């Protein structure tokens, strides 16, 4: 199967089955995680600090393989997938990191353009989308500024723009609105929602309970002490009207 393959018709975009994760010889930070994420759905991942949200997201954006269990992404088993096939899958995933992870010696514009350049998009073809994205996040006058000269909120916006510019099929965001004012938070959430309407599956880890109530049809996953609380089974067997 090629990297462009998608989930089976009617199948889940992401499937976790009894997944466990441990770092080294320590106890598992995640245990028996099972859920399905449906294409085009919007999920919030919540839970107290240290519950394992970031570890779960790492497995979602392919920075970490599970210690046990099965993970399928876009219909393919990721646990046994050879690493040389991972880049093709990663290009279909947008990630907003909690600590932004902007490349410090690149300008805001170059940071945003990075996924397109890595994917081989020509300079001619990427200048339009990058310009639009800069304009949308309100940083067209700071296009050539380096991250160190941007405020935390501005860096956050650049990080989000970088995550969404390649129109990923799966968007994973770790506390994406933690450093922006409420107005910008709503604008960013609006962008996620717009992408979701276009078919992107969105997973947002957040502590902000007010954010969750802003998105219709969003589903919530709650992690506590490394285990996924899903008492209704909605994540594993989502009702059709939620998909």
């Amino acid at each position, binding site marked *: 199967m090629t990297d462009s393959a998608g989930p089976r018709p009617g199948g889940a975009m992401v499937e976790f089955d009894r997944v466990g994760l441990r770092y080294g010889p320590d106890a598992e930070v995640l245990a028996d995680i099972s859920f399905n994420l449906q294409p085009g759905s919007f999920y919030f991942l919540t839970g107290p600090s240290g519950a394992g949200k970031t570890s779960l997201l790492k497995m979602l954006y392919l920075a970490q*393989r599970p210690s046990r269990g099965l993970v399928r992404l876009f219909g393919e088993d990721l646990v046994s997938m050879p690493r040389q096939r991972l*880049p093709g899958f*990663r290009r279909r995933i947008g990630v907003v990191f909690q600590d932004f992870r902007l*490349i410090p010696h690149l300008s805001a514009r170059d940071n945003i353009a990075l*996924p397109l350049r890595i994917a081989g998009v020509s300079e001619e073809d990427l200048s339009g989308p990058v310009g639009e994205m800069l304009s949308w996040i309100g940083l067209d006058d700071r296009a050539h500024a380096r991250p160190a000269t941007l405020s935390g909120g501005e860096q956050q916006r650049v990080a989000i723009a970088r995550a969404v510019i390649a129109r990923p099929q799966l968007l994973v965001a770790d506390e994406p609105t933690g450093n922006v004012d409420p107005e910008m938070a709503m604008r960013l959430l609006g962008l996620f929602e717009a992408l979701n309407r276009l078919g992107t599956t969105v997973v947002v880890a957040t502590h902000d309970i007010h954010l969750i109530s802003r998105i219709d049809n969003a589903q919530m996953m709650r992690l506590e002490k490394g285990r996924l609380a899903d008492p209704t089974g909605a994540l594993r067997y989502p009702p059709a009207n939620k998909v």
Partner: protein
Amino acid sequence: MIIPRVPVQHRRLLPDRRLSGPTPWVIAILMMLTLLAAGAGVGLARAANNIGDAIAGRVTVQIVTANPVTRAEQAAELRRQALAAPYVRTARNVGQDELLATLSQWLGSAGGDDPVLRSLPLPALVDIDFVGGERAGQLAQLRALVARAAPGARIIPHAEWLGPVARLIRSLAWIAAGMVLLMTLASGAVVIMTARAALGTHYATIEMLHLIGATDRQITRLFQRRIAIDTAYGIALGTVVAAAIMLLIGWQWSGVTSGLAATASLGPMGWALLLALPLLAIALAALTARLTLLSALKKIL
């Protein structure tokens, strides 16, 4: 390709710091020493070969008959018979004046027609060069000829007294080759350390590139290009300095026109080897960097 092509925009993924680290300078020093060792090795190897060729087929027959007239006649007869022999290429009587000139360098001379030197009982010498072939057989035939033409004369193969010198020079050439090999290995080690250090320094960038879908080859090309260029700067600098030193030595060497020293030269093949070494070094550095980077990246998911 020695220095991989990377789009300009991709090159900016690494900070533009040229010649900022120690690598180019260490490589420059190693390259300079490598070229000097290689130059010395080639020159010495050629000298050893030249000496070997010269001495392998040459003997001097020393005629010590007491009567000077008989001695001169025996020398002339020996030369005549030797020239007629099929295994002899040339045969030459060493003139009395030539012998006196050589002796005067050791014993001193009053200049001109020195009566003391003239009074010395000097042997008659005949230099004989063999044609190419089986030396032991040729020597046996010459012994028989000398026994007939000049009984009591001594045959002195030049290999007996110049052979150890040729072997010493050949040993020095091998030592120089060994030094070239060791410095090549040291240069490779420097490149490996540079590649690993670069990966450590830019780990966050590499991790980010991986996570947005960059392949190992894309990342490797970036670093390989940077390391190859930095190394090329060092190699160019080392080559220029080594060339200057070799030209200086060559200029001084040109004044040495006698004896064994005159046999030392690089020759066209030697110069070609020295010119190829820097290019080979750049290629080796790029290949080493590539393999090191690919191996290190495989350890990252």
